[in-house]
């Protein structure tokens, strides 16, 4: 941990050697006093070498754990190292590094525990497929009904978290292995964490394919619905125990 640094930028990366160099360069060009940690999620390409050549820290997982597993590794590291804030950032070049400043500003006010960068709140020109659009609309609706809070982009990979949130996520069983989504968000809101969404600029990927394509989206949608249902039941059971 660099002296005076209280924030860790966490970048999970899987086969992103074409993009990660540029992403790191963009973040460093901001000249912020932050640490950067890349989690190499069992990549078969040169991701780890590219990050090391750029002079940044990289934790190498021995095999592919999935996006959630990689993120949780970073949360564990941040919890042990004593960081106050963690900012999740994608390795594919879709996120605008300047949004880091806005998210950090919001986190440091102390009014929010989770700050989400939303691609649907104005800035940028992000296009999504029909299936993904339906899935996101459905998740938005479920979040609104179950928590009363309007979240436009529950699948956003650009998020800022305070220490109490990422320490909670770092614990075994508190974070999904594949992809944190509406289920994690609903659980966090119902646990009392204060969530804020801000507009961010999401660009097209530098190169490569997105994680959610084709029939996988349908399976993902069904899995997520089950996951949300489980979260709601668990919370209801916890509430009943507290009342008793």
């Amino acid at each position, binding site marked *: 941990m660099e002296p005076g640094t209280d924030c860790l930028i966490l970048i999970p990366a899987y086969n992103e050697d074409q993009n990660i160099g540029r992403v790191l360069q963009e973040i460093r060009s901001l000249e912020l006093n932050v640490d950067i940690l890349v989690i190499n999620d069992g990549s078969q390409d040169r991701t780890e070498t590219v990050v090391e050549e750029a002079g940044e820290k990289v934790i*190498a997982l*021995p095999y592919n*754990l999935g996006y959630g*597993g990689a993120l949780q*590794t970073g949360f*564990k590291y941040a919890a042990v190292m004593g960081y106050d804030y963690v900012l999740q950032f994608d390795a594919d070049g879709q996120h605008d590094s300047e949004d880091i400043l806005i998210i950090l500003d919001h986190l440091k006010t102390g009014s929010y525990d989770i700050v989400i960068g939303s691609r649907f709140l104005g800035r940028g020109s992000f296009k999504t497929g029909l299936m993904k659009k339906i899935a996101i609309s459905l998740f938005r609706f479920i979040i609104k009904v179950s928590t009363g809070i309007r979240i436009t982009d529950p699948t956003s990979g650009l998020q800022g978290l305070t220490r109490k949130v990422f320490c909670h996520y770092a614990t*075994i069983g508190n974070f999904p292995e594949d992809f944190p989504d509406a289920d994690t968000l609903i659980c966090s809101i119902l646990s009392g964490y204060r969530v804020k969404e801000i507009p961010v600029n999401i660009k097209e990927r530098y190169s490569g394919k997105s994680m959610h394509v084709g029939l996988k989206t349908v399976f993902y949608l069904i899995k997520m619905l089950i996951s949300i249902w489980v979260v709601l039941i668990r919370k209801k059971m916890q509430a009943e125990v507290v009342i008793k």
Partner: protein
Amino acid sequence: MSGTVKLIIFFLGVVFVVTVMYLLVKRKINERNSLFWLAGSLIILLLATTPDILEITARIIGVDYPPTLLFLLSILVILFILLYQSIQISVLQEKCRELTQHLAIANFGKKEKRRQENS
């Protein structure tokens, strides 16, 4: 049930018991998991030696054709074992993920320490 069929079922039961015991000795299966399979093999042996049990049970429950009761019970037991295995796999996956993460962080710590010593 003819004598030959009885003999074949009995033989299969014995093979099953011996296989489970062999796996136990070779440490390919642990005692807790072997219990289900040993119980299954003993039921096969019991039904082979005293098939009347099945007929009497079927009559009490109201099943007209006793072998269907055997199929029903077999499927239920297999489903139960499968569910138990799924639970075990889920628990193991979670533990494996946790270990992998700790290992990766520990390796990173060692690498950083070496790097600092060299610089």
